[in-house]
Each structure stands twice: as C-alpha cells, then as structure tokens.
C-alpha cells in the first residue's frame, strides 16, 4: 500500500491538480496547481513549501560519533560545530560516490543525517567497530522545506529565533508549542529553510506556516517545480546526475566526487589523520589525473534554439519541464564529448540550461559545443556552450 506523510491530510486539500507521484513509497505531489511553472515562480519570487518527509533520517549518537562520521563521510565533519549543517557525500573504497545528503551536528556527540536512499543497513554494518548508536528516525519526524525570498519573513513571524540563522546554520526552536529543528538549508539555490517536526505535531505546524505565509503568497510546490529550481541551482539529484555506486552495474554509471563537481567538499583530503572511505582512491585519481569527466553547466542561446526549429518549419516552444532522459553533447567539430544529465528551459535564465558531464578537455567555460535535439523526428544539433554552475545564485541565499 502507498503510504502518506504526516502532512497529507492538508496537502490533499491543497492539491487541485490531483497529481501524485511515488517517492520512497509515499504519495508525493508532482504539482498542486495545474501549472508547475506557477509553483516555480512562487518559489523564485515569493515562497513555496515542499514536503520532504519521505527523506530517510538517521541519528548517529555516541562517544565515537565524530570519529565514525569522519570515517564514513568524504567531507570533514570535524570542522562542523554543533548548530551547523553540512552538505555531504559518501563514497565506496574505489572513490565512487554512494550517495549525497545533509548532515546536521546537533551536539558534540550527536549527528542527524538526511538521505534520499535507505542507509540504515549500511551505516549499522559500519558502526560495529564504534561506540555509536544508529537510529532510524524517518518515521518520527515530518520534514518541510520553506524556500524562496519571502521564507525568512514567513518563519520570522512564527519564531524570531531564525532571524539570526546563518547559511547552513541550525537551531532548535518552537513553533506554537512544538519543538522543531530549523536549518537554513534547501534544494532551491535560494534563501530557504528546512524544518524537522515531530510527526504527531506536523499538521499543526504546517497550518501555522500556511497562515503566516498567506500575506507573502506562500504556495505549496511539487516535484516538478522542485526539479526545475534545483537544476538552476546546479544541485545534483540521485538517479539523474548519478547512481549509487553500490547499485551500479558498470563503471560507466559510477562517478567520483571530482567527476560530479563535488571536489570542493574534499578540502583537507591530504590530512593523514582522516582516512575516510574512498580517500586513497581519490588521491590516486588526483595524482594520476584519471578523472574521466568534469561536471559543467551547458546553455543554448535562445536565438540558436529558435532558429533550429524555425529553419525546420516549426515554432520553438521551450519546455520548462526537465527532459526525462540524457541529452547528447558534441564538440564544435561533431565529436561526442559527453551528455547533459538534466536539461530544461529556465524561465529565469530565459534560455535552455543543463547540468552536464563532458570530457575534461572540453570543460572550459565558454567552450562551444553542439547539443542534440529531436526535431521533426530527426536528431539535429544546436550550438551551445559550456557554462559554470550554478545558473541561479542570488546574494540573499547566504546573506
């Protein structure tokens, strides 16, 4: 049976599109409005809320918690002070990424991890040699993302504590009578917050947020709008940008942090005191320059896209819904150089954008490329170029 999240009774009333998808066995809205673009603009211009309750949530607690986390996760958690959160990846010992997620340090000896895939078996199998408890708290909490320029104004009205919260900061506060954990994190690339709420008080807190959000035009948004904003933010999605190395069948489906553009997480990798899983392989990759890919942005200028269609007798109608498959990329000379893993028309950028993997020598920003499109049932190329990531990065995100 499909399950529903603690927010569902309210979300069901709000879902005028009656469009539900399946996220980890939970009903998850694809969109609430008939137009997911409308929801996208809510997030970009006002604020939106998204139900992230199906995320897997784990407590990692005990005297060895820091030692354990600095062994398992590729980014150094020792630098993470209590009251801070960190974007993380974890790798296998071949240096391939298993998954990404966000880790919250709630106390010196306590961490809270959110991840898209179940990891309880993996974490407990590694925890045997540590004094540490791994607790699966997935069903204890509902979680909600409130994202967009007005998100601070909305939450401030409920809990003034969040005013002080810095980017990737974390605080325990109250909304009404309910203890909630609020972090300044999100998947939109904008100013935004995520709330972890005890499951039994979820509806009460949601109703308070909806009420506080009304003057700010707060709206719910679904998976389609979420996917749009995260591509603009250049954030990788499991199942799109990468597969977990654990379940990949060939190395073509496995990627190292450097190949995924996540090398910046590995600051301090030379530090011998932290032999995290995958470190040696990553050092070897760096020493030998064996990275197969670089992750870049790609963009097509509107004029080129329009002309491609016009010259074939068609009107170009850009679609903001990301395409569900990979888009092949070629060099200016027509040689295969990689593929876009996510590709969409960005209403914000007013052109087609994508997150792509290309061979390292084609990764320089500005490199001219050819992007394959289907036109009149033929594969035709359109001129594009390599860009940096992200596409959307307002100052208010971190200010």
């Amino acid at each position, binding site marked *: *049976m*499909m*399950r529903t999240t603690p927010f569902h009774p309210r979300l069901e009333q709000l879902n005028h599109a009656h469009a539900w998808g*399946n*996220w*980890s*066995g*939970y009903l998850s809205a694809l969109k609430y409005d008939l137009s997911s673009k409308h929801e996208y603009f809510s997030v970009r211009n006002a604020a939106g809320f998204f139900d992230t309750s199906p995320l897997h949530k784990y407590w990692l607690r005990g005297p060895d918690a820091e030692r354990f986390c600095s062994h398992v996760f590729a980014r150094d958690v020792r630098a993470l002070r209590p009251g801070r959160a960190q974007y993380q990846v974890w790798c296998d010992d071949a240096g391939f990424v298993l998954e990404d997620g966000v880790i919250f340090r709630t106390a010196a000896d306590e961490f809270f991890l959110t991840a898209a*895939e*179940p*990891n*309880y*078996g*993996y974490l*407990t199998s590694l925890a045997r040699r540590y004094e540490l408890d791994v607790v*699966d708290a*997935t069903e204890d909490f509902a979680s909600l993302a409130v994202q967009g320029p007005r998100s601070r104004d909305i939450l401030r009205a409920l809990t003034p504590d969040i005013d002080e919260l810095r980017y990737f900061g974390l605080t325990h506060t109250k909304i009404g009578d309910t203890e909630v954990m609020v972090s300044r994190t999100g998947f939109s690339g904008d100013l935004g917050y995520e709330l972890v709420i005890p499951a039994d008080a979820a509806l009460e807190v949601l109703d308070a947020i909806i009420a506080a959000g009304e003057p700010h035009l707060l709206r719910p948004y679904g998976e389609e709008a979420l996917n749009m904003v995260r591509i603009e933010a250049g954030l990788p999605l499991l199942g799109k940008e990468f597969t977990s190395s*654990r*379940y990949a*069948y060939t190395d073509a489906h496995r990627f190292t942090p450097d190949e995924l553009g996540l090398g910046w997480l590995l600051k301090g990798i030379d530090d011998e005191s932290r032999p995290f899983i995958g470190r040696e392989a990553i050092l070897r990759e760096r020493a030998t320059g064996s990275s197969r890919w670089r992750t870049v942005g790609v963009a097509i200028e509107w004029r080129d896209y329009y002309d491609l269609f016009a010259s074939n007798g068609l009107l170009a109608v850009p679609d903001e819904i990301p395409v569900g498959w990979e888009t092949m990329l070629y060099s200016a000379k027509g040689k295969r150089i990689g593929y876009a893993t996510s590709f969409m028309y960005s209403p914000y950028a007013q052109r087609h954008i994508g997150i792509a993997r290309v061979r390292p020598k084609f990764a320089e920003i500005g490199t001219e490329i050819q992007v394959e499109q289907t036109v009149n049932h033929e594969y035709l190329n359109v001129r594009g170029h390599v860009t940096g990531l992200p596409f959307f990065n307002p100052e208010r995100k971190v200010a």
Partner: protein
Amino acid sequence: MADSHAYDVIVIGAGHNGLTNAAYLAKAGQRVLVLEQNSLVGGAAITEELRPGFQFTTFSYALSLLRPEIIAELDLVRYGFNPLYMRSHFAPMDNGDYLLLGPDDAVNRQEIARHSKADVDGMERFQHDTSRVRQFLRPLFDSIPPNVFSKDPQDADQVAWLLNHLGGADTKVIHDSVRLLTGSIKDFVDDYLESEIIKATICSAACVGIKLGPMSPGTGMNWLYLAMGEHDGHSGSWSFHKGGNGGFTQVLARAATAYGAEIRLNSAVSHLLTKHGEARGVVLRDGTEFRAPVVVSSLDPRRTFLQIADPRELPSDFVETIERFRFQGVSSKVNFALDGIPRYPALGDRTDHLLGFLNFAPTVEYMERAYDAAKYGWYSEHPYIDACIQSFMDPDMAPPGKHVMSCYVMYTPHELKGSTWAEQRENMADRVQATVNRFFPNFDDLVLQREVVTPDIIEERTGLSEGNIYAGEFFPHQMYFFRPAPGYSDYRTPIEGYYQCGSGTHPGGCVIGAPGRFASQQIIKDTRR
C-alpha cells in the same frame, strides 16, 4: 503403409519441450511426428476441468523460466501466448502479521522496513549482488554447454569461450556465484538480511522441487536457477499463462501444428528401433511402427536410456551414470475448488495480497523442519506451501464468485517408509488444508472439492521418474556439462540419430523450453553435416 509412416524426425512426448523441439524442427522444414501417450498434449503442463467451470492446473502452475527467444522465434503471440502478470507475493506469519511484496520497489521498501529497517538496504544489496551473478551466468545458462571431455577442435573453441567468460568476470561476482552455486541459501541471505519472514520468503523459493532444506548446501544453486526466469524482462518475476500452463502447451501445439508437425495422441512409445547402432524409428506399445532417421526423446534420462533405448546398445559406463542419476521427487500438488475468497484476518476485505503467490513458510526453521521429515521417509507435519488463487489472475479459471487455488506442497518423498501414498494421500492433503486454514480461518468452509497429486501420481500420469518435477535432481554433479552425463550434455546420445530434449538435459526443469530449442539446433546442425 511404410511410406505414410515415414518422417524426418519423431519426437517422443508432447510435453512443452517435445512440442518446442517439434515446432522448431517443423519450422526448419523437417517432417515431424510427435507421439504422446496421453489423450492431451502438455505432459506435466496441463489444465483440466475437474468440476464444471473449475480449471485445475494439475501439475505445473506458473511461468517464468520460459526463454524469451522461444516466444519470439516461434512467433508464439500469434498462436495465443498470453502470460498474465502475477502482481504480488504474500507471506503470512504466525503472529498474524505478514509480508506483502508487490510491483513497486519504493512501496516494497516501506513494507520491508516494517519488519527490519536494516533489511531495506540489505534487500537492495542482495538483489543487486544476485542480479550481477545472474547477468554473469546467463550466457552459460543460455547456450549449449561446451563439451569439456572432447578432443574435437570445434569443442575446444567452445571451452576456450567458457574459460574466457569466467576469466573476464569481476572477482566479487565470481565469488558470489560460487557462494550461491555451492552453499546453502540460508547462509547466503544471512549475509544480507535479519528479518525472519524476509529470509524465509527468499529461502522458500530455493527449496522448490529439491530434496534439500534451506540449510543444506545446494539450495543456493536452486534459488539461482529459479531466479533465471523473468516476465517481460523483469528478472525473477513470474506469470500465469491464460488458461494455466495447459493453456501454454496448447499454444505450443498450435504453433507446432501450424509449422507442419503432426501430433498423435494416445500413442505410447514402447521402444526405439535401431540398426547398426543408428536410430531408425520407434515402435508403439500397440505394435505400430514409425520410421525416421532422427528420434528425439523428451522423456527423462532414466526412461530415455533405460526404457525406450535398449541399455545393451549403450556403453556400460554411460549406462552406469544414468542408473546413478538421481530423481527423488518430493513435490505434491493439492488443488482446491473454492466457494469464495479466503480472508486473511489482518487484511480484512482486502484482496490485493491474493494477486500472486501465497507463501506458507513463516520461518527458515519451519522450512528446515518440513524437510527433516523427508530425510527419514515421511512427509512434513507442517508443509511448506506455495499457493496461488489462479482465478484472481484469469477469471476463466472458475465460475464468477468462485475460485481455484493451486497448492504446491513440499516435502512429500516419493518413497514412504512403511506406508504408501495410496494410504497417506488424504492425510497429507488434510495437513495442507489445515495449514492454509490456520492462516485463512474461513478456508475450510470454502472448499468445494480438492484434487491430491502425490509423487506416485505425477510419475504415473506424466512419466516423470519418481515424480521428480525437474526430470532429474538439481545437484552440481547433475547440472551443466554433467546433465545428464559427462560428454552428453549436447543433446546427442551414444546412438547416432537418437537425441534427447527433455528437462533432464541442460539447463534443466521448469517450463523453460531451452532443452527443446537447443536440441533442435543440434539436430539441424547434424543433419546439415
């Protein structure tokens, strides 16, 4: 008279492999005669109406191993091939709870998490590791085993291919393959999982058809064998053919006939005719002779070589190997006609758990104890039952509102110590009914009729020696290039022109068709020489 009885090929037995073989040969232009002892085709894959409107799958009851090549090459869809999707897998538990796995991986994760959170990713790893093993072994499964005992250079090429394939594999995949092929399924799943009901569900699938318990080495291989099946490309999925597996063999018969094969029912073969050590035809029990330079037996190795052929015409070491080939059937069927829907108390009026297999094996120990009895010549007090209410998949199986339920039962050894199946049959069926009733408390009240099929009946009606459903047990020394005997895994026999195409040859049993197909390839290759 002699002319009208002359064919290019005579196939003995119209089971699914005999029919597959005949269809391929007829399609290739051979004049084929299929001789079947019973009054309908299908062998162990038949459907019978034992009560007006109620269709029973007497023996074989589901489809998965059937090689997809056969569906395409014989154009079976044109002849009515219609495998219906079996959507779920339900395992009741002693405490009234249950495990219900269905078509959606994400929903299954939630169900698994109810039993163990660690098993959610444990199951993912189990499925990933085993699917890599399947991927690695599939080319071996889906080709004629190389003759490693031969000096022929053509065979040497095949052996080199095999060694190259083995050598090219990932170390972990090789090791996992060996762990599965030689070990017990319990040891293997223990490395991934902790929940008893999840382990028991996997382990039960490893024990179907073999005289081994989940703790016995060898069950890993049986699990792997059955996991080589698929439905629409989804590994390990099962389907129910419209009209049961009898419906499927009717499709094969239509295809074979359309390609020009002639099927003769009520024609039990007595023996093979030979001259100068070469096959020349067969003689029926009523004395009728049919002539052909090629004779293919779809019967099991014991009957192919010790009954139809004259063992005195075969090399004595080969005869010894065949005499040692083990059968030991342990399977029974109890098929029920039901007046309504069995209800599982914890699920109230729901029926979505009845749309596939019902697996009565709540713990690994339950399975092992069920097996213990068989070791000592008796049948299980608490049997393992793999059931299916087939009228939920195909409404034509029973009148509206009524149902038919197929119960495959383990363990029921062919030989009972100090008794006979004639004496014990109804008592065994009572235990099966009591077991189902223990979990579905309204079951007894629904039973309109039951059919009890024990190993002696399987042997008598289908000809499968000792009632072994695989036409010979699945032991490492009876598989691959040892099936049925070293040097004869290529569907040929020591008698020129005499071939074998039954489940006693590679890859083995189940409704799979591969032996029939491979044998046809070998025959066509040899005839063109």
